[in-house]
């Protein structure tokens, strides 16, 4: 599962605010635009390790078409698409495969989904299978649970993950618990998905990270996708799983472009993804922060460090095998996440690593999280709220000094 990133700096530049029009995705990065050769960037995660590239000094944070071998697209296998298209592809394949798979949510049908993940599905499958619900999150999530108990396999879309706070009653009490309290009689194969995370000045309520609130609920699994490849794979795996799965997408990642295989594939729900193997330090991250980490990794590599970057992907349960092997190799851990400091995924991960791999650590685990503040609207303040690549670089340098 090794992946090599050609260019990840543009991740910050992806726009979320114009989510309704997939054709127009513009960059609003505060960096200079001059180096950018177009409005897309290419992420390669083709699973091949190319150690030569790792040592190469990279001057640009952003891939330009010239230096990317992926430019010759015609000869390469697979097809290119954006992350939201990958999600849709996964969804569509599963809906074709199993007629019990259905989608419920606000504006998923005729509108095509507020982030276009379900575009075109309602005309194809009908209004009942791609159900436009009224604005009643708790009730339609409960309805999905009831439908799942009686034989269907619904996918609930939260238009923004934050809205699912209204569905907390159903997610915690019913989704997570009913399999157990019924003594195993009823399964609840729902998928609850939606975009979350800090976007581009969306304000506090639209910038929430619900993974920290949901992580204690027994009986559910949580995964976070970060690339088109794993988005499609995790979507398919989540739909096929008999367990209730919450799939966290990120508002700013929907327009990531990548080449994914034509043949069918599924990502394992419980496994983490090795993004960049290394020797000096283990950096654990997920979702959008993966891109900040990889951007910092460029700088770190230039400074002579060799970070190992793992996208944990499975937020609940943690893949302690991949993580553990990495810790045993590097002896230093840095966690970079977008959750708040208090009670976030990072906090749980810190505890889990301390508990299991304490003897292998040469330094205390450092966890970089967002500030414990409601995400401000102002752009400058918002930038200070989340972890930036410079902080990651500093943290790695400090950790490696010890």
């Amino acid at each position, binding site marked *: 599962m090794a992946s090599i990133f050609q260019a990840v700096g543009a991740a910050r530049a992806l726009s979320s605010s114009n989510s309704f029009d997939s054709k127009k995705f513009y960059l609003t990065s505060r960096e200079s635009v001059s180096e950018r050769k177009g409005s897309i960037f290419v992420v390669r995660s083709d699973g091949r390790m190319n150690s030569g590239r790792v040592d190469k000094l990279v001057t640009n944070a952003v891939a330009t078409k010239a230096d990317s071998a992926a430019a010759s697209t015609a000869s390469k296998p697979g097809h290119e698409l954006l992350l939201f298209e990958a999600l849709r592809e996964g969804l569509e394949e599963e809906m074709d495969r199993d*007629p*019990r798979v*259905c989608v419920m949510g606000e504006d998923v049908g005729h509108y095509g989904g507020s982030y276009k993940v379900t575009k075109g599905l309602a005309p194809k499958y*009908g209004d*009942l*299978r791609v159900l436009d*619900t*009224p604005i*009643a999150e*708790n*009730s*339609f*999530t*409960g*309805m*999905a*649970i*009831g*439908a*799942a*108990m*009686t*034989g*269907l396999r619904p996918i609930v879309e939260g238009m923004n993950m934050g809205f699912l706070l209204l569905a907390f*009653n*159903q997610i915690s*009490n*019913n989704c997570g618990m*009913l*399999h*157990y*309290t*019924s*003594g*195993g*009689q*009823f*399964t*609840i*194969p729902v998928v609850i998905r939606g975009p979350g995370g800090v976007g581009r000045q969306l304000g506090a309520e639209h910038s929430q990270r619900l993974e920290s609130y949901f992580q204690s609920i*027994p*009986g559910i*699994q949580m995964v976070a996708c970060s690339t088109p490849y794993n988005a499609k794979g995790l979507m398919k795996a989540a739909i096929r*799983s*008999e*367990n209730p799965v919450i799939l966290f997408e990120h508002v700013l990642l929907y327009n990531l472009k990548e080449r994914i295989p034509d043949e069918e594939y599924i990502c394992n*729900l*419980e*496994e983490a993804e090795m993004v960049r193997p290394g020797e000096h330090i283990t950096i654990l991250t997920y979702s959008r922060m993966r891109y900040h980490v990889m951007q910092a990794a460029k700088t770190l590599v230039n400074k002579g460090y060799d970070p190992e970057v793992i996208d944990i992907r*499975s937020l*609940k*349960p*943690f*893949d*302690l*095998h*991949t993580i*553990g092997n990495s810790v045993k190799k590097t002896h230093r851990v840095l966690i970079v996440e977008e959750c708040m400091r208090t009670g976030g995924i990072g906090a749980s991960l810190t505890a889990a690593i301390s508990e*299991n*791999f304490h003897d292998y650590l040469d330094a205390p685990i450092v966890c970089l999280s967002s500030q414990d503040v409601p995400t401000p609207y102002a752009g400058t303040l918002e930038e200070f709220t989340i972890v930036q690549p410079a902080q990651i670089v500093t943290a790695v340098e400090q950790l490696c000094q010890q």
Partner: protein
Amino acid sequence: MSSAFSAINTVQRPPHASVSQENPSVRSSLPFLGSTHKLRPNSLHKNGASIRRQSSIVAVSDVVKQKKTKSSSSLPNLLITKQEGLVLYEDMILGRAFEDMCAQMYYRGKMFGFVHLYNGQEAVSTGFIKQLKKEDCVVSTYRDHVHALSKGVPARAVMSELFGKTTGCCRGQGGSMHMFSREHNVLGGFAFIGEGIPVAAGAAFTSKYKREVLKEADCDHVTMAFFGDGTANNGQFFECLNMAALWKLPIIFVVENNLWAIGMSHLRATSDPQIYKKGPAFGMPGVHVDGMDVLKVREVAQEAVARARRGDGPTLVECETYRFRGHSLADPDELRDPAEKAHYATRDPITALKKYMIENNLVEEAELKAIEKKIDEVVEEAVEFAEASPVPVRSQLLENVFADPKGFGIAPDGRYRCEDPKFTEGTAHV
């Protein structure tokens, strides 16, 4: 029932009054006997029949009442056959005997926690659930023992569950408030009020989906959601009324209005206490029925179920009923007026049915006694079974958390945690 819409839309809402005594418009149209105001003397002198509602929505209860008064004088026009009557009677006796035994067992320390008994409300459960097929679904609240029994869950399975034994219907993992049965399509048992209503809407959605998307043309399964008067003020109730009417889901919303939500009188909690009126506001018929009379309940249930099976959509039925015991076995029940309790005790549904059947020469008293004896034995046997059943062992702790136990994740050694032998012992570190 749909013709009643227009009448309801024009009903004036009474001006706000915290205690409805002073408000003439409320008093005249509101025959509730909540203890917040004294019983009206004229209500007790009515012919043993229930207080009539001033609403024009209710067609059935009046019709049924007429039928009843006629039939006591002349024989044709009986509402039930002997066979049907015996089924109803046996089910209600089972509910009553079971709940009485629960009280006994609770005070003897065999069951614990919160136990909510259904005494007095049997007509609702029997009247509605006996209209269902096995494939139809029932969703209830924490007061769910009798719903499970009426639906067909064996008494021994329910009693074992209450005792927390592994032979219980939920392997002892659910308890009193979480009765589930896949075989009999009992979808719970929910501790939070209103929580089950969306689940019921989901089950109804599946039925519609099967018919329209999966093309199982003969799928006409209906779902019944039972809940109380307190729940009728909860958001989930209204959200589901909307969705059910919007998509014409085959669901019946049954409000068991026993006037009390623990210690909160319905009148003190609700701006417009007539819950059935909330149905037409969402586009479905709202029916009020005397929930102490199983024959009336049965008539309404038949109509509502037929409506749902035809695909005409949901119905909201408000059953005026009463619980003879407190909210739960931990409730001292000091707030309710003894006169109110006495009044409803005279309307005991079991006595009423017995009287009806005997007066109409459907059965001999001896037959009914035989049924009571049989049920006593069933309940005794259930207790013995539960007593003798084993308690869950440690290895049961981690089963059933996930349908796919891979959900516990991958342990540091690379294997899935569920493959760890300690997992089946229940001692694995997860």
